[in-house]
């Protein structure tokens, strides 16, 4: 009987430590979201925008990464069509956490315009 009580007490210990560590992931997620919001304070540099836009365009399946330069035109130079163009702009939206309105998104048809738009966007992160 005493042994059983001892064992039970022993078993309860890990359960207690489990509940104690329970809220930890929540705190972590809070920290990371706070850091995310504060990242808006320092604006993106042009070099960073160029680098990230080019990496997105290069990672597009139909694009030959060797052809991608900051001045490349999606449809004339890379042989993409208007559907691919929409997909690239959507990928850029996801990368920079933006929502580009349709009118603006229609105009973005080259790396140069994409870089200009994102660099001048106040919420690009």
């Amino acid at each position, binding site marked *: 009987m005493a042994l059983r009580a001892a064992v039970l007490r022993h078993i309860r210990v890990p359960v207690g430590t489990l509940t104690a560590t329970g809220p930890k992931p929540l705190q972590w997620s809070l920290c990371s979201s706070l850091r995310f919001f504060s990242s808006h304070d320092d604006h993106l540099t042009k070099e960073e925008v160029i680098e990230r836009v080019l990496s997105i365009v290069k990672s597009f399946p139909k694009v030959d990464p060797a052809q991608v330069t900051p001045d490349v035109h999606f449809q004339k130079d890379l042989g993409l069509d*208007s*559907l691919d163009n*929409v*997909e690239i702009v*959507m990928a850029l939206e*996801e990368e920079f956490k933006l929502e580009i309105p*349709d009118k603006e*998104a*229609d105009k973005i048809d080259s790396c140069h315009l994409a870089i200009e738009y994102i660099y001048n966007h106040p919420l690009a992160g």
Partner: protein
Amino acid sequence: MAASAVAAPTRNEVLWLYRSLLRVARQFCDYNIREYTKRRTIDAFRHNQKLTDSSKVAAAFADGKAQLEVAKRQCIVYSLYAPKVKSVMDVKRSA
């Protein structure tokens, strides 16, 4: 008469539908549904890309619009019953 009543959509309208479907696809909370909706949208637009008959284009466009409504509705319904645990694919992405 029915054929003339349904005019073929313009290029901008088609691109709007494409963009709208991709936007809704991003909002699903479940990784698998999110990816499926995106994949299905891209495949369907590629499949119908070569259509020239205006009545067929109009029919495909109307179908796409109906699917957009379905996707919007389902996105809300699924958000009410969102899984408590994230897909392992989402965990990987945020890490």
